[in-house]
C-alpha cells in the first residue's frame, strides 16, 4: 500500500491537533466559588454544619460533571466572628476571582462585608442572615431565609394568644446586634400591642466574661411568667440551664437564632418545653430533604439541622443559576430571571432585591429532646 505525502501530513496534523484539543480539555479551569462563615468562636455551631452542607452540594455537583464540564473549586474562609477578619477574607475571595460567594451565616458579619461584595459586583447568597438592614436594596446580596422580624412577630403573637406568657423578662446577647436589635424591636411591638408586659430587659455580652448564673438571677428577680432568650445556641443553652436550676417551672422561649440541635445538646434536660419560632421543619417528609439528611448523616454522623439545610439551599440556588447562566449574562440577573427555585423543603421565590418573598414559619417546642411543631 502506498501512502501519499499528503496522507502522512494529514495524519501527523490530526494527531497534533488531537493532542492539543485533549490537553485543552484537561486544563479546563474550575469554577471558583467562595464560602464564608464562622468556623471558630461562639457561632461555630452555625458555621460547621453550613460548611459541611455546602461541601456536600459542591461534591455532588462535581460528581455529576460540574458546571458544563468545569469542576467547582470551593474556597472556604473563616470570618472568626471578627469584622476585620471577615473583610480580609472577602477581599481574598474577590482577589481569587470567585464567581460568587455563599455566606456569610451571621447578620453581624454580613453588614461589614456586603459593601465590598457590591463594589466588586460579586453575588453573595446567604443561608441564614436575617437582618432587615439588608432588605429592599438593589445590591448583590441574596438570601434564602426570611427576616428576623417575621419570626419575632410570629413568636410574640403565639406566646400572647396561647396564654403562655404575659409578663416577661428578656435576655439579649449584643454581639449580633443587626439580628437581635431588629428581633427584639419586632417582638416587643407585637407583644406589647397585644397586651403583654416586658418587666425587665438584660443585655449581655459573652465577650465581656458575663456570668450566666448572675444573668439568670437578674432575669428571675422581677418574677416573670416567661423568659425570652435572644442569643446564640450555646449561650441560650447555658443560660437556660441556669434559669431552670433557679426556677424549674418558668416558661422559656428562644429567638430563631438559638433554636438548633446544639441548643438541645448543650442544654440537656433544661431544654424540655422551650419554644421557638422557626422556618425549618425538622420532620419534613419531603423526599429531597430526607435524601439529603440521609447522605449528610452518613458522612458527618450528625443531623444537618437548620444551618445545614439553609446552606445547602444557598448552594443549590447558586449551582442552578450557574448551570442556567447564558453567555454574557451575570449571576445576579440569572438568579432574578429564574426567580423561583426548588429547594429541600419546598420552593423559594426571590423578589427584585434578592430577598425571599415569603416563607412558612412554625412555632416549635422541645419535647423529648426534639423540636416538635405546635402551630
Amino acid at each position, binding site marked *: 500500500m502506498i*501512502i*501519499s*505525502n499528503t496522507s*502522512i*501530513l494529514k495524519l*501527523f496534523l490530526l494527531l497534533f491537533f488531537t493532542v492539543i484539543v485533549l490537553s485543552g480539555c484537561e486544563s479546563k479551569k*474550575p469554577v471558583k466559588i467562595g464560602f464564608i462563615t464562622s*468556623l*471558630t*468562636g*461562639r*457561632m*461555630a*455551631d452555625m458555621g*460547621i454544619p453550613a*460548611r*459541611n452542607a455546602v*461541601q456536600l452540594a459542591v*461534591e455532588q455537583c462535581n460528581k455529576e460533571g460540574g458546571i458544563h464540564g468545569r469542576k467547582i*473549586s470551593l474556597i*472556604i474562609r473563616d470570618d472568626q466572628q471578627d469584622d476585620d477578619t471577615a473583610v480580609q477574607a472577602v477581599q481574598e475571595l474577590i482577589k481569587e476571582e470567585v464567581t460568587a460567594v455563599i455566606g456569610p451565616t451571621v447578620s453581624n458579619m454580613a453588614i461589614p462585608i456586603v459593601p465590598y461584595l457590591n463594589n466588586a459586583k460579586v453575588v453573595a447568597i446567604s443561608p441564614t442572615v436575617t437582618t432587615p438592614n439588608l432588605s429592599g436594596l438593589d445590591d448583590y446580596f441574596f438570601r434564602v431565609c426570611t427576616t428576623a422580624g417575621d419570626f419575632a412577630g410570629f413568636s410574640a403573637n403565639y406566646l400572647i394568644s396561647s396564654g403562655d406568657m404575659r409578663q416577661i423578662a428578656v435576655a439579649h446577647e449584643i454581639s449580633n446586634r443587626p439580628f437581635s436589635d431588629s428581633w427584639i424591636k419586632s417582638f416587643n411591638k407585637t407583644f406589647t400591642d397585644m397586651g403583654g408586659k416586658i418587666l425587665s430587659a438584660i443585655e449581655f455580652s459573652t465577650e465581656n*466574661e458575663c*456570668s*450566666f*448564673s448572675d444573668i439568670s438571677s437578674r432575669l428571675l428577680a422581677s418574677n416573670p411568667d416567661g423568659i425570652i432568650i435572644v442569643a446564640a445556641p*450555646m449561650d441560650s443553652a*447555658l443560660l437556660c*440551664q*441556669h434559669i431552670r*436550676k433557679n426556677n424549674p417551672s418558668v416558661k422559656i422561649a428562644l429567638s430563631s437564632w438559638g433554636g438548633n440541635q*446544639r441548643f*438541645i*445538646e*448543650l*442544654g*440537656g*434536660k*433544661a*431544654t424540655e418545653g422551650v419554644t421557638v419560632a422557626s422556618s425549618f421543619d425538622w420532620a419534613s417528609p419531603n423526599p429531597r430533604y430526607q435524601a439529603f439528611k440521609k447522605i449528610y448523616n452518613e*458522612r*458527618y*454522623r*450528625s443531623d444537618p439541622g437548620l444551618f445545614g439545610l439553609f446552606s445547602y439551599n444557598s448552594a443549590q440556588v447558586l449551582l442552578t443559576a450557574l448551570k442556567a447562566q447564558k453567555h454574557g449574562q451575570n449571576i445576579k440577573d440569572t438568579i432574578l430571571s429564574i426567580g423561583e427555585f426548588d429547594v429541600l423543603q419546598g420552593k423559594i421565590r426571590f423578589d427584585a432585591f434578592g430577598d425571599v418573598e415569603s416563607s412558612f414559619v412554625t412555632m416549635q417546642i422541645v419535647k423529648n*429532646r426534639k423540636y416538635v411543631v405546635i402551630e
Partner: protein
Amino acid sequence: MKSPVPLKKYLTLNFIAMAVLPVLTIAFLVWFFILPGIKHRAGIQHRALADSVAGKISTYLKGGERQLSALAGYLQDRQCTIDKEIITLLDAQCGKGEFFETLFIVGREEKTIQAVGLPESRRSRRDDFTGLDFSGQRFMDTVKKDSRIVWSEAFLSTISNREAVALLVPLKDVFIIGEITLDKLSRYISNLSEESDFFTMLLDGNGMIVADSQNLHMGEVLSNDFPAVKKLTGHRPDTQMFFKWDGVDMLGTIAGLEKLDWKVLVAQPTARAFELLR
C-alpha cells in the same frame, strides 16, 4: 536504479522519525525508569517524615493520657470526694491551657458536671459550668459500654465552642474528661512540619481532619472516595497515593498512630516531588 520511494516522501518520513523517536525514547526512559525512581525516593522521604510525625503525635497524646490516668488514680484513692483541693488540682493540670483546655469530673449516672478545672483566663466563669447537665453531649455515649480510656470523636467545646476532642477516663462513679481543642493539635503539627512545602494532616477513623499543618481544614470530613480515606480501611496503612488538594496535585504517604485509630498523612505537591524532571 530508481528508488521505489520518492525522495520527498523519504525525507518526510525521516524528518518525522527524527522528531518523534527522541521524544518517544525520552518518554520511555522517564516513564519506566526515572519516574519510579523519584517516586520511590519521595516515598522513602515521606514515609520517614510520616512515621516521625506519627511517633511525635503519639507521644504528645500519650502524655495527656498519662496525665489524666495519674489524676484518675489519685481520685480513685480519695474515692472521688469533690472538694476545693480537687478543683485546685484540676486547675493546676489545665495550667494556662497548654494541653487540656478544660477538665471535667462528670457523674456517671446523672451526667452532671461535679467539678471543673479551667485555664487561668477562664476561672472566673467556673460557676457557669459547675452543676451543668452534660447528658446531651454526644461524646458521652462513647464510653457507655466501655471501661477503658477512650478518645472521643470531634465535637464543639462546651467552654469555647471550638472544635475539640475529649479524652475520657471512666472511674467507678464518675468520668474524668479532658478537652483538647483541635487548633492546638494543628499548631503542634505545624511546628513539626519544618519543610514548608510539606502538608501534614491527622485523620481520625471516619476520615475527619483532626488537625492540619495549614490550620485551614481541621474539622472537615473527607469524602469516602478520597484516596486517604480508602486507605484508612485498607490492610496496608503505609502506602503512597496521588490526590488533588485545593486544586493542586499531591503525592502523599499515610502512617498509623500507635494504639489510636488515627492516621497521619504527609503530602507534597507532585510538582515539588518531581521537580528533578523540570
